[in-house]
């Protein structure tokens, strides 16, 4: 076991007191900055880059790893407590996490997220050690037709989130798709629905949409129908996961990496689609399906574990191929170059100590993250005890900071408000919010991959099905679509 001995050496590097301290600083800084509105993990790493100037490369990368994992986790804390996702991988977490926090199960939601992150990170990083070369060689064989097929599968798999009324769910999905259309068309550079402003030409960020629909829409809706009198402060409840919680969460924790890791490792994967798929899967498999939408703990545990494992998957492609598959990976690649290190196929041979030290510190960072954040969960959850006006005023403040800070442009605030008003109207008319988010995430990617596939084949429709993986995925889609029909036929035949 070559990898194993290298990993042991790596632990030797990562566990020296100095490196351990850098990992801890990285995790704490990353979590703290990840909690700030508008600053996702990529910004966090970029902003903290100067902190590492003067450190040797191994120490610097150990710290980056901590910042990355910490930043990924910080985003979900605000998602659960304030309904304002800090980054796109944490959007799904808000759907069950925030209702849990509102009903006094905030500590449990945060703990489920923290342990989910831990499990996802551990399994994902182990997969990184064992599978990196194999995964990397498979990753480059996946092309546009395969991505499109996978996105079709994702669309079909998550129709179950459309909600009680199919028609209203569809309307919501279409609203999301419309928001996703805004911006320059990536294939031809033509502007769509930008109304002549350059500010809309990069499209509307999915985090802005989520914060607008979730947080601003909610604040306005609460303002319109505030329950007057007798609204007691939100209870904080017991601080730890009960036996029942554990029974419900251990499977989602373990299923997360199965979905998240492969998506993280392929060049166009990311964390958004797998977290959605994880949510849909957990909803389908749960014995407590009626609790979904009102605070089902599986809906926090699964997506969080998935997001964390997808981060580990991202490291595979970055370290073995030198390909950045997410914005964070792009920033880290840039950081590698600052140290005169070129990630790529030769990295493992050239920089053996650094790479294995980095991988070992991913394990260390994951453990530290759990040790630091699990005791903090009840503390964070107390935040919700502040009186309602301050809570919702704070949410609006927080959401506005996030929308404004990055671009420094009041136009973003106007966009946030308009999306907030849309969220208000959707609550008023019973349109579920989730399909809209799904449309924003999946729509642009699906269109891009479909058109790219068709362009590569110079317009021939066979370009969509000329790979075995795509065909296999379409077969799964067909089975999924035919399954309810077949079941009904079988039942009818039995009668």
């Amino acid at each position, binding site marked *: 076991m070559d990898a194993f001995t290298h990993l042991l050496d790596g632990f030797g590097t990562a566990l020296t007191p100095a490196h351990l301290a850098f990992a801890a600083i990285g995790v704490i800084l990353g979590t703290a900055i990840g909690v*700030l509105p508008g*600053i996702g993990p990529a910004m966090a790493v970029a*902003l903290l880059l100067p902190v590492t100037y003067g450190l040797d490369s191994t120490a610097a990368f150990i710290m980056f790893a901590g910042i990355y994992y910490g930043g990924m986790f910080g985003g979900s804390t605000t998602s659960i407590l304030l309904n304002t996702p800090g980054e796109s991988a944490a959007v799904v977490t808000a759907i069950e996490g925030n209702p849990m926090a*509102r009903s006094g199960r905030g500590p449990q939601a945060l703990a489920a997220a923290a342990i989910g992150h831990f499990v996802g990170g551990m399994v994902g990083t182990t997969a990184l050690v064992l599978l990196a070369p194999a995964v990397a060689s498979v990753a480059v064989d996946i092309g546009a037709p395969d991505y499109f097929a996978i996105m079709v599968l994702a669309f079909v798999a998550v*129709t*179950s989130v459309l909600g*009680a*009324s*199919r*028609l*209203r769910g569809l*309307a919501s999905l*279409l*609203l999301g798709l*419309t928001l996703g*259309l805004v911006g320059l068309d990536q*294939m*031809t550079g*033509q502007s*769509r*629905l930008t109304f002549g402003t350059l500010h809309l030409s990069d499209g509307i960020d999915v985090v802005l949409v989520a914060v607008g629909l979730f947080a601003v829409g909610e*604040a*306005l*809706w*609460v*303002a*319109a*129908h*505030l*329950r*007057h009198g007798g*609204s007691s402060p*939100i209870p904080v409840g017991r601080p730890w996961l009960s036996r029942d919680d554990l029974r419900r969460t251990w499977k989602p924790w373990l299923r997360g990496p199965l979905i998240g890791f492969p998506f993280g490792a392929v060049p166009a994967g990311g964390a958004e689609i797998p977290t959605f798929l994880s949510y849909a899967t957990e909803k389908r498999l749960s014995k407590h399906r009626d609790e979904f939408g009102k605070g089902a703990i599986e809906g926090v545990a699964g997506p969080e574990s998935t997001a964390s494992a997808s981060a580990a998957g991202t490291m595979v492609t970055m370290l073995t191929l030198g390909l950045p598959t997410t914005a964070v990976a792009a920033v880290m690649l840039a950081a590698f170059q600052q140290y005169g290190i070129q990630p790529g196929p030769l990295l493992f041979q050239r920089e053996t100590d650094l790479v294995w030290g980095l991988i070992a510190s991913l394990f260390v960072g994951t453990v530290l993250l759990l040790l630091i954040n699990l005791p903090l969960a009840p503390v964070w959850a107390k935040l919700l005890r502040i009186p*309602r*006006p*301050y809570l*919702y*005023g*704070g949410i*609006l*403040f927080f959401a*506005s*900071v996030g929308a404004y*800070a990055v671009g*420094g442009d*009041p136009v973003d*605030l*106007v966009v946030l408000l308009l999306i907030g008003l849309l969220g208000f*109207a959707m609550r008023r*008319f*019973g349109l579920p919010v989730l399909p809209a988010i799904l449309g924003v995430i999946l*729509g642009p990617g699906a269109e891009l991959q479909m*058109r790219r596939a*068709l*362009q590569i084949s*110079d*317009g021939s*429709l066979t370009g969509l099905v000329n790979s075995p993986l795509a065909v296999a995925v379409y077969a799964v889609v067909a089975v999924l679509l035919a399954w309810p*029909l077949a*079941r009904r036929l079988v039942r009818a035949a039995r009668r």
Partner: protein
Amino acid sequence: MSEMTHGHGHEHGHEHGDRTPVRRSELGLCAFLLVLGGLVCVDALRIPDDFTRRGPVGPEAVPMLVGGLLVLVSVLLAVDVLRGGRGQAEAGEDIDPDTPADWRTVAMLLAAFLANVALIGPLGFPIAMAVLFWGSVYALGSRDMVRDPLLAAGLSLLTWFVFDRLLGVPLPGGPLMGVL
């Protein structure tokens, strides 16, 4: 999937009471979707087609599909509403959907938000954000005239300090920057 019935929200509708205004606003939603669908289609038709293109699917195809579906859904939804279907307004811990909407609070909240949009350029982040926070807690019913403004100022300053000074994310400091 199979157990769901197709889109008639009959079970949600209130049987009695102010039927007509509710129905009117539901039809307003349909009108909104219809107009939006039309807008998306018109915008797609506006895309010039004299540039080099590849394949059967151009930049206008998906918008046309989405816009067309929006129009279709708006019509189906209108039919559903006229048959008595009704959306279920979202309830929650802090929300009592049975009370009539309190538009005054919403208007105050919007005013606080828009004041922030208007002020953040000329007066800077700390002032505008303090106005937003104080305005929204006032709108939502807090009347502590001593604690609220000071809390707003403190929160706003702290945020500005962390972003601008510690992290180097530039935020406008206000009219006195460079004067004092």
